[in-house]
């Protein structure tokens, strides 16, 4: 399952001149935006001009509070993601291996994962207050589900012919798991990691915006109440860049680890 975004990027990157076109398009859109703002077609107190956002962004990046807030957000994100992976992936792999376990758990997991983790913010606030701990709990509660499901699914999807081959050569359990099951499931687990990473970021910032826990989201809420609109936009843009960076890094890692997989191979004509 390739991320459509990655597909977009790869397709776009294939053409040599396509990179130039993209830059031009971005510049063109920014210029149009600037024009609309300058002529007053876009009310400045609703959507500021790119220039105003740029200025604010420079100011924001220059101050220490931003980097502190960023650090706090990243910390909750990374820690929450790590804990989620360590919890959900082994459990998911084990559950997926047993047909009985898979079918027993399916309903429960299906139900629990449709509860938007945001709904747990009030509960988390009650239990932990507006703290980093609260963010962690929320992130883990939300991010385990895609990891769990993808891991279970990955084990379930091991190719039948591959399994039969392993069986026909009488490979023992350890060999089968290490050389057939786990590599087969790896692409799915990785997709789970990517989904969980995005969800973890969403939850961290969500906990900060709604719950008031310290971090980027809290800075955004502050900017909004202070009616510092360019700053608000600058912070939102920064969070988007953060999201893009995370996705890019993960895609890189995936390309390295899963270099053998169909999705990563150079396509043949």
């Amino acid at each position, binding site marked *: 399952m390739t991320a459509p975004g990655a597909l977009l990027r790869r397709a776009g990157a294939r053409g040599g001149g396509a990179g130039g076109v993209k830059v031009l398009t971005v510049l063109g859109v920014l210029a149009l935006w600037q024009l609309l703002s300058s002529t007053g077609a876009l009310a400045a107190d609703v959507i500021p001009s790119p220039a105003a956002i740029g200025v604010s962004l420079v100011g924001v990046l220059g101050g220490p509070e931003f980097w502190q807030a960023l650090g706090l957000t990243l910390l909750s994100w990374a820690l929450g993601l790590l804990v989620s992976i360590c919890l959900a992936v082994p459990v998911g792999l084990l559950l997926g291996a047993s047909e009985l376990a898979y079918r027993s758990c399916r309903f429960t997991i299906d139900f629990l994962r449709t509860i938007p983790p945001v709904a747990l913010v009030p509960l988390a606030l009650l239990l932990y207050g507006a703290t980093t701990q609260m963010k962690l709990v929320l992130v883990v509660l939300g991010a385990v589900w895609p990891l769990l499901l993808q891991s279970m699914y990955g084990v379930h999807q091991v190719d039948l012919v591959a399994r039969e081959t392993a069986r*026909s050569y*009488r490979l023992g359990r350890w060999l089968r798991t290490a050389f057939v099951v786990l590599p087969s499931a790896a692409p799915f687990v990785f997709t789970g990691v990517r989904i969980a990473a995005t969800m973890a970021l969403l939850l961290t910032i969500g906990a900060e915006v709604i719950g008031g826990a310290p971090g980027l989201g809290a800075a955004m809420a502050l900017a909004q109440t202070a009616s510092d609109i360019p700053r608000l936009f600058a912070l939102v843009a920064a969070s988007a860049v953060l999201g893009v960076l995370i996705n890019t890094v993960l895609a890189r890692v995936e390309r390295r680890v899963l270099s053998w*997989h169909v999705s990563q*191979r150079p396509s043949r004509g």
Partner: protein
Amino acid sequence: MSESITQPAMIEPTRRPAEVVLAAQGVSKQYPVPGGTRAVLDEVDFEVVRGQIATIVGPSGAGKTTLLRCMAGLVTPSAGCVVLDGTPVTGPPEGLAVVFQDYSRSLMPWMSVRHNVELPLRGRRVGKRERRERSLAALADVGLSGNGELYPWQLSGGMQQRVAIARALAYRPEALLMDEPFASVDAQTRADLEDLMLRLRIRRNITIVLVTHDIDEAVYLGDVVLVLGGSPTRVETRLPVGLGPDRDQIRTKAEPEFLEIRSHVLAKIRGHRGGAE
């Protein structure tokens, strides 16, 4: 041309007495379906002699693959049994190696060709050095020397199937079972792979049971051709092929005996289809 079902083969009386490696004894297989059971195989009996290539041919859906899987121990027969070297088969036995039709799914894409060939040897606890020697020798035997460090998806279909064959060879089984192994490659590659099997048989004296739907292939490769048919499937005919071990795609296929056996098999299969309609 005798149509006996249970006589052990005596193709070349000048050789030493036949030694049965693999035998199917009254193998029957039924599957439960809504409303009862469906019988796929019914009392299949035959024997394969060491050093022999036995080809199994029959119309599509005749249960050829089911029979092969029973022999491989991947499926348990509903009745009867498969005997390997005197021991009944209950689950994949140590003395057999299987080459599947779908090579792209049978090879592990995350491992190099050499590691793929060595994988079953790990299961047998063969030491690292010997694993390497055996895999390199097997790869050389199938004509893939120097390709050990490539990945399966970097090879063509025919080469991938050679890797699967090398994997089976390195395993040193009593017998090699092949399930329509050349059905997924083009005609030219198929001819090359067929000749490869003949060469391997001479060089390594292996016993092969090969299931195919291609009548020409069955007669070209086989020392004995087992024609399956009927519903449920039985061994319709058992035809010894007296063409000798030294065969050639052009010469052999023009020989009268080849043509005769071929049309006999074709008639048997056709006759069956005619009867079923």
